[in-house]
């Protein structure tokens, strides 16, 4: 490697070449520890090339040296590690001061990679070799897997890196028409769409608009492209309804023209009415022996180096071509002072035009009907040193080599393939065109338009006409009709661009079809002969097209090889489906700032101030208990005791709330829930149990009748959204005269519970008769608490005198403060979800989804009391009846431990009968109030009678005995809650 600080590198060409670089700003960076200097605007690869450093990476399987291939990020040859970012495209990434860049996939150093020894045993590593060996004995793979696995992958992940060192965000964009690609077709399309009246966003992945106009040669003088580019680009800039995004990649097409566009650290999501895909084409390599050596590149890559970066691709070049562009490249090289040893044209009789004649005039040797048979190399394949050339004597068949040329650069310009990835994502069908020898879009979906070389159009004036037509059609599709109707071009100039068979096997092999995966012609042929004889199967078996460039250079060659080996007609074949993204997308871009919605109750900050340990409950946060984690168990006991003996306050805002209103409200609840509600008095509440059509319990709550035609229905925190959906769905069929509103977020709620709760509430509630007679157990009232309009309910979940108070959410904190203040004298303290779980378990109340599962019916849960027998129908009723008749297989019971010294079982410890699993413990706790273990468990129906015992398998596999006892465990006569 040569490091030079002079004039941005020894290969740098003088201005005006170097459209993208700023020669006034030098930038120094390191590659593999060596210091290099380039110019602002250089990519890593162009800066290295300017300094005559051509080897950038090592290949995946054989660890062969690889260098510049496309200069536009379409290949995997230039993948490097930059800091903690693996697999960066060196030919796309701009250099920055002090950037530290490393090669990838080598053992030792990039220069002397010991991994290259793999090539020596290549005969032993045929296509799919890992399927064919390493399983000779059962332990073989155990031995080999770590070795094979260590060879996998390219770049490295830094396990200590933190994602937050980079900032990523997202933005939504809208337009009438998006044009993807800022080359000639895209520029023409954007202008025409704008002139037709549409608001247009033009997306270009390079720093400059113009695409091929900026580097390709369209005529013998070489200035046609830049003239057209400048003219179109300035018209675009002047057009007020075109927004231009450069350095921006549209990485995919999703349903209804939903387009991700990545620019810098921002991930845009663009929605448009119509999209023009003017994504261009991908130059295809020729397949010959050692076609992967550094120094061998696409013709367009050399032109990009020269014109965009002012970098000389070499000193002496051989051009392998099958089209006019190869001759343009010869002229470009000559003008840049690079010797052209020969132009090798695959075509026996190429058409003559001004450009070919100009090459002849320059005295360059032109060999037609010939191909490169082999590329020679120096320094362990680190650079091309020459080529041998042979006549083509049949399709893919060469005669004896007739000449050798020394050279340090080989340009391949033998054809193109549409960059049709986004069209593929949109569902476009491609067919093989036998005239142009390319796949071309045949049926493009609605609201999607293709233009330019992706649309099989190559002649510059045809490309511009195609762009104008697509722009007009897209604008029309989006509802704009200004100006007159346009027609697509008739002649597209797609012939004589792409050679039908630029694939030349060599007796010694190493003709690479897929550079990413190191696949040679014989690998594909052998795969076909192994039986994988369709394009799809061959891809999966050989991994052709599965590497980082996703088949951009290998897919068409693979189809050709399959076609020839199997005799299938190319016209009936296609490349495998292209899936998003077009170019790899960073996790950081996709994640953005990571929006994960969370819900907080109105009292959230009060809980934090009180030291609550918050726990997630669906999207909500709820206080688990109040105090330090270290004191968890003691705190929970204290909170429980304070409710039992004094008064406690819990935030129940997360409970679902549904207002059910209308003449049929009671009938509606009768159908939705197991109980009956038609006779429920106004001012009273009743338990609710919901089942699905199979009779499985799905939710519970309380129905509060505030008016003949108004029920306030509560639901569980996690269940309310489902309950609401079910209600709407069923009533869409029943059409009862009832309205349902999910008012969960509209109300904040607390439960003030404990023997002193009435005393505390009386201090802040003056318009409701709180006496046991005036507001009895299960009563509901409307009134005010601390001046706040409130819905009050006497409920018994924790088994003490208590009031649930629901107020408009904005008053939640005020309500909390008022009750805490009012209860100060009585030693009120908040209690959390954990204490509530203990309290309810002491009363034997179930928690749906903890004490029930996806198959529990009301009879298994031992809740026949909650099922009304008198009404004709409720959802799931019939199913549950059938299951009851068929005989239950398990039953939920209350239990305590036979031996009081045994440990408290944990939730989901199994209940066994012999060795058979018959149930499980669903809830268990050492009750602070009863000083013993109480719990709920599913047991065999034969063991469900009080006094029966059953086996529980606890931690460590020990079996202990539970004894069935009646519930409630605490206050069996329910006197406390009815005070």
């Amino acid at each position, binding site marked *: 490697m040569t490091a030079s600080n002079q004039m941005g590198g020894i290969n740098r060409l003088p201005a005006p070449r170097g459209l993208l670089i700023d020669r006034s700003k030098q930038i120094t960076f390191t590659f593999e520890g060596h210091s290099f200097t380039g110019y602002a605007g250089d990519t890593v690869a162009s800066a290295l090339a300017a300094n005559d450093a051509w080897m950038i990476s090592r290949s*995946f399987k054989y660890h062969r040296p690889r260098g510049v291939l496309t200069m536009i990020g379409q290949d995997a040859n230039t993948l490097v590690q930059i800091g903690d970012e*693996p*697999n960066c495209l060196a030919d796309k990434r701009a250099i920055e001061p002090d950037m530290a860049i490393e090669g990838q996939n080598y053992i030792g150093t990039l220069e002397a990679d010991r991994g290259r020894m793999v090539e020596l045993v290549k005969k*032993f*590593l*045929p296509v799919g070799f*890992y399927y*064919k*060996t*390493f*399983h*000779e*004995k059962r*332990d*073989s*793979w155990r031995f*080999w*897997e770590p070795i094979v*696995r*260590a060879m*996998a992958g*390219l*770049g*490295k*992940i*830094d*396990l200590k890196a*933190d994602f*937050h060192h980079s900032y990523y965000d997202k933005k939504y964009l809208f337009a009438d028409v998006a044009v993807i690609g800022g080359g000639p077709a895209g520029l023409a399309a954007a202008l025409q769409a704008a002139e037709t009246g549409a608001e247009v966003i033009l997306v270009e992945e390079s720093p400059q608009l113009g695409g091929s106009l900026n580097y390709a040669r369209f005529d013998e003088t070489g200035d046609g492209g830049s003239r057209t580019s400048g003219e179109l680009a300035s018209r675009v800039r002047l057009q007020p309804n075109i927004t231009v995004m450069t350095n921006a990649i549209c990485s*995919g097409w999703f*349903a209804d023209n939903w387009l991700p566009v990545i620019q810098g650290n921002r991930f845009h999501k663009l929605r448009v009415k119509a999209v023009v895909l003017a994504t261009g084409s991908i130059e295809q390599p020729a397949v010959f022996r050692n076609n992967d050596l550094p120094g061998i590149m696409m013709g367009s890559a050399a032109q990009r180096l020269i014109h965009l970066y002012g970098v000389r691709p070499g000193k002496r070049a051989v051009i392998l071509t099958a089209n006019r562009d190869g001759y343009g490249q010869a002229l470009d090289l000559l003008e840049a002072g690079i010797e052209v040893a020969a132009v090798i044209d695959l075509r026996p009789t190429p058409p003559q035009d001004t450009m070919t004649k100009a090459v002849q005039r320059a005295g360059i040797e032109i060999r037609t009907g010939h191909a490169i048979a082999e590329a020679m190399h120096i320094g362990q394949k680190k650079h091309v040193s020459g080529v041998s050339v042979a006549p083509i004597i049949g399709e893919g068949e060469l005669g004896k080599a007739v000449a050798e040329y020394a050279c340090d650069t080989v340009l391949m310009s033998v054809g193109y393939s549409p960059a049709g990835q986004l069209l593929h994502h949109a*569902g476009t069908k491609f067919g093989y065109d036998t005239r142009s020898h390319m796949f071309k879009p045949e049926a493009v979906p609605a609201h999607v338009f293709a233009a330019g070389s992706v649309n099989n159009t190559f002649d510059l004036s045809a490309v511009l006409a195609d762009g104008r037509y697509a722009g007009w059609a897209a604008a029309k599709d989006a509802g704009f009709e200004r100006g007159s109707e346009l027609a697509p071009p008739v002649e597209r100039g797609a012939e004589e661009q792409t050679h039908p068979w630029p694939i030349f096997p060599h007796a010694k092999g190493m003709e690479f079809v897929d550079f990413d995966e190191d696949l040679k012609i014989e690998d594909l042929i052998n795969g076909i002969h*192994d*039986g994988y*004889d369709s394009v*799809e*199967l061959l891809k*999966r*078996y050989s991994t052709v097209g599965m*590497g980082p460039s*996703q088949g951009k250079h290998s897919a068409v060659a693979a189809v050709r090889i399959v076609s020839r080996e199997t005799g299938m007609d190319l016209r009936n074949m296609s490349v495998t489906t292209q*899936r*998003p993204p077009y170019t*790899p997308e*960073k*996790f950081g871009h*996709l*994640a*953005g700032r*990571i929006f*994960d919605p969370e819900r907080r109750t109105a009292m959230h900050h009060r809980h934090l101030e009180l030291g609550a340990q918050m726990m*997630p409950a669906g999207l909500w946060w709820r206080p688990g208990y109040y105090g330090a984690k270290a004191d968890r168990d003691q705190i929970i006991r204290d909170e429980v005791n304070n409710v039992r003996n004094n008064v406690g306050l819990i935030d129940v805002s997360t409970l679902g709330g549904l207002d059910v209103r209308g003449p049929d409200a009671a009938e509606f609840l009768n159908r939705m829930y197991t109980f009956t509600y038609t006779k429920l008095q106004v001012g009273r509440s009743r338990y609710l149990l919901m089942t699905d059509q199979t009779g499985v319990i799905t939710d519970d709550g309380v129905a509060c009748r505030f008016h003949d035609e108004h029920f306030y229905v509560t639901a569980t925190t996690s269940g309310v959204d489902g309950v609401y959906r079910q209600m709407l769905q069923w009533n869409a069929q029943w059409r009862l005269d009832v309205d349902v509103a999910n008012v969960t977020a509209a109300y904040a709620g607390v439960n003030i519970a404990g023997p002193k709760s009435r005393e505390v509430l009386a201090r802040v509630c003056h318009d409701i008769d709180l006496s046991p007679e005036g507001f009895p157990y299960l009563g509901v009232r409307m009134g005010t608490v601390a001046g706040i309009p409130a819905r009050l309910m006497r409920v018994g979940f924790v088994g003490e005198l208590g009031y649930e108070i629901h107020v408009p959410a904005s008053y939640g904190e005020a309500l909390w403060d008022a009750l805490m203040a009012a209860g100060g004298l009585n030693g009120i303290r908040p209690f959390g979800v954990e204490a509530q779980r203990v309290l309810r378990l002491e009363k034997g109340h179930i928690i749906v989804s*903890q004490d029930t599962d996806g*198959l529990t019916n009301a009879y298994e849960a031992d809740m026949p009391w909650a099922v009304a027998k008198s009404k004709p129908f409720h959802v799931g009723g019939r199913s549950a009846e059938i299951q009851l008749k068929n005989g239950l297989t398990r039953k939920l019971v209350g239990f305590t431990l036979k031996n009081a010294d045994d440990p408290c079982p944990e939730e989901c*410890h*199994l209940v*066994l009968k012999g060795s058979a*699993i018959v149930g*499980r413990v669903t809830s268990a706790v050492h009750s602070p109030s009863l000083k013993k273990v109480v719990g709920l468990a599913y047991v065999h129906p034969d063991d469900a009678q009080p006094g029966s015992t059953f086996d529980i398998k606890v931690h460590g*596999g020990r079996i202990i005995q539970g004894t069935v006892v009646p519930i409630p465990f605490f206050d069996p006569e329910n006197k406390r809650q009815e005070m």
Partner: protein
Amino acid sequence: MLPAFVPSGLFRYGFSKKYPARRHFPAPKDLKSTYDVVIIGGGGHALACAYYLSRYHGITNVCVLEKGYLAGGNTARNTAIVRSNYLTPEGVAFYDKSVQLYQELSQETDYNILYSERGHFTLAHTDAAMRTSRWRAEVNKQLGVNSELIYPEDIAKLCPSLNLSDKVRYPILGALYHPPGSIARHDAVAWGYARGAAEAGVEIHQQTAVTGVIVENGVVKGVQTTRGTVYANKVMQATAGSSSLVAKMAGFRLPIRTIPLQACVSVPVKPFLDQIIVSGSLHVYVSQSSRGELVMGGSTDPYSLYSTRSTLDFKEGLLGHMLELLPMLGELKVLRQWAGMADMTPDFSPIMGKTPVENYYIDSGWGTWGFKATPVCGLTMAHTIATGEPHDLIKPFNLERFVNFAQVGEKGAASVGH
């Protein structure tokens, strides 16, 4: 006897002058008019069934009909995880048999499926998930399957890359740890079975779509295809993703909803993640393949659809959660995304065995759990077809269970959110 580490399978490639091609599946040929057994579908399950029929039941006059290319449906689209840490005793017994078959499959079919034990972690971020994890662990242990509920201290030791901070939206409270959890090369599983079946005489016809099922007096007689009518004594369908459509041709309905399930892979990087990580709450599952790619999936799409189109929302949600679990991956890149179609059943268990049509058998309802069951499905369906009676392991998965209220509830053991 050569020691285990000698890769003798490669000798004939290395030492022969010409590539010794071994055609794994026969070239296309004409369909016969009659077979003993016709299998609709050419994916892993179908090919495994054909393999066991031909190799263990002596039934070789078998025809596999695939409308696309071999194993190109959900066999090609899944994320290749194998495990048996299920919730119900029926499920655990069934999937555990599958794991046992997988462990020997490379030797059984002489095709290296790259079966790799990685250890499977189902992360729990809520109390409810902790309870379900303990439930699964207890059921597993009782039935002899290696599973344990572990806590953050143990997770930190076993899987140090994971972010165990409590300063995230959903802190990790624990995990169900299942050491036998594995990954395998999904295509190789199908190809190994296909080659074994083909060598035993089974005919495999690709690009041959079944367009109708011939039923007379409640008995199946054969199928119509795009290449003509084929008669058969017995017919099986194994067409995950379009099970209800094929069953409809046979004249009966299935309680299945078909929902797209998306997945993606990263660009290849050097191995750094040896474990299989699953989080139901965060809708993430991830492992690193033998190619170095991270293979990732999330929850099913929120609607029914017979389509494998890719969605952007999926990737955004998935990668957001990925970075919560593995924050160092911000600069890693997604290489490719795709989708499969998941045939979801009400109880998250498959529907297998006999059908209302006599001699017509079904292997369906494979939701998001089909790949891991491939060998055991082949084994049990072959038994069922050969004997006419369902194999003991699949009796609980009969179609009538939805009428008899005998569902096998596995929702709690599903990897992905639904």
